[in-house]
């Protein structure tokens, strides 16, 4: 009999505890983000689409077309054509930096591999398109400009010698 009564008491107590938890939640703000209208503030190291930023000091990108990024890429998403000067000799510059974002798995290995910090993962994540071709982009021709904290973070990453 006492076991039965204590069971009832425990049951009522635990039910009330449960009701209390949901009651407490009623007074908290919703964590919903109304996505297309509101957008989240992404963390600094968020990995979005790959970009090749323009260095504000020189007004050009830092790529030397060394192909280390293309070798580091596990998916072969990068295809780089070296620039050729008027004398027919290759120059340390990318004429074309083809980035196939449809292939990319956002692993950041190309960024790690680059000795000049010429490329970085931006915080662009709305990259859906209607056709396959528009997934490919020539990053060297894009002249992407970084802004805000991402820019200062990117500038602080590269402390070595400037590419010649």
């Amino acid at each position, binding site marked *: 009999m006492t076991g039965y009564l204590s069971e009832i008491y425990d049951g009522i107590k635990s039910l009330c505890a449960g*009701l209390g938890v949901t009651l407490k939640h009623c007074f908290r703000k919703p964590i919903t983000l*109304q996505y297309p209208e509101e957008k989240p503030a992404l963390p600094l190291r968020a990995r979005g689409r790959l970009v090749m930023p323009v260095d504000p000091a020189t007004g050009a990108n830092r790529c030397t077309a060394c192909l280390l990024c293309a070798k580091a890429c596990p998916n072969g998403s990068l295809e780089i054509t070296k620039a050729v000067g008027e004398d027919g000799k290759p120059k340390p510059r990318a004429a074309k930096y083809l980035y196939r974002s449809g292939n990319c798995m956002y692993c950041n290995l190309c960024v790690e591999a680059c000795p000049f910090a010429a490329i970085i993962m931006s915080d662009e994540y709305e990259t859906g398109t209607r056709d396959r071709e528009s997934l490919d982009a020539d990053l060297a021709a894009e002249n992407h400009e970084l802004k805000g904290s991402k820019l200062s973070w990117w500038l602080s990453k590269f402390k070595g010698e400037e590419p010649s």
Partner: protein
Amino acid sequence: MTLPLKELLYAPAAPLAAFAAKAHALWAARGLPSSVLDLLFQLAIAAAVSGFITVNALFIIWFDRKIAALMQLRKGPNRVGPFGLLQTLADTLKLLSKEDLNPRGIDPLAFWLAPLLVFIPAFAVFLVIPFGDGLIAGDLNIGILYILAISGLSVIGILSAGWGSNNKYSLIGGLRSAAQMVSYEVPMMLAILPVVMLTGSMRMGAIVDAQAGYGWFAFMQPVAFVIFLIAGNAEVNRAPFDLPEAESELVAGFNTEYSAMKFSLFFLAEYTNLFLTSAIAVSLFLGGWEGPFLPPVVWFLLKTYFVITLLCWARWTFPRIRVDQLMQFSWKYLLPIALANLLLSAAAMKLL
């Protein structure tokens, strides 16, 4: 002629009776039988009730979803219309435009009749709900008995939905529902009995009148009130007692095979039953339409929505219980407590 608005809001019995008498006199002056006019009046009341059921169910569904969102730190429906109020309307239109599927191997009669058998009891119980002073479609002298008898009928509809669908999940859902309804009707009746004993009448109007002056039976009979809420929640098949349509085990239980119009009837009946359980709880335990300043109808709806909030709170807090726990809870806990409460209150009434 000016409408007696204040009177219509606060004490509609007299103006309504005057209106009926006037209409009868006019009708008789043209030499027509008064039974036809009575029939017309009854049809008008039925139309008003069905209109109320539809609009109210649309609102309750929105209300339930908003409370769920509040407790789960979400925002809930907020796209269609102001505050998402028209979301349910949009959902209903979508449902009605869907194909009415009839699976192979169904029992056509049971399958087609089931939604109606579930919905008609919910509709019929509105006869004895006192919305305000004199605003009651038919104040039967066996009001409580009528409610219990009619709302018990909906189990047949759910059972026939389960049987007629030719689907194992539907059948299990229907059988669970039958077991649940039968088990929880007993503590529900035992929770109502003290109220009937205190009032000395089964008439809904008399029960509300007996609580005049804030002598609400919820204060005198708190245990019966809580038992009524729990058993009522089980009667309308809502969480934590939603075993008949347990999504995680039975697909959707007895309404697995239903689509379009038939499914929307089930849905409508479920939320109407929720409103009815709350309305009966308000009439029996919370003083019905009694309250200061505001019109009785407003007080009645406010209190009913308060009880609906309580039931929604329970729904979005507790996980679904197992079948054996369901039976145990009813027969081992609710029933003895309700019986003890009944005996104690009977003894107290005899002694005091």
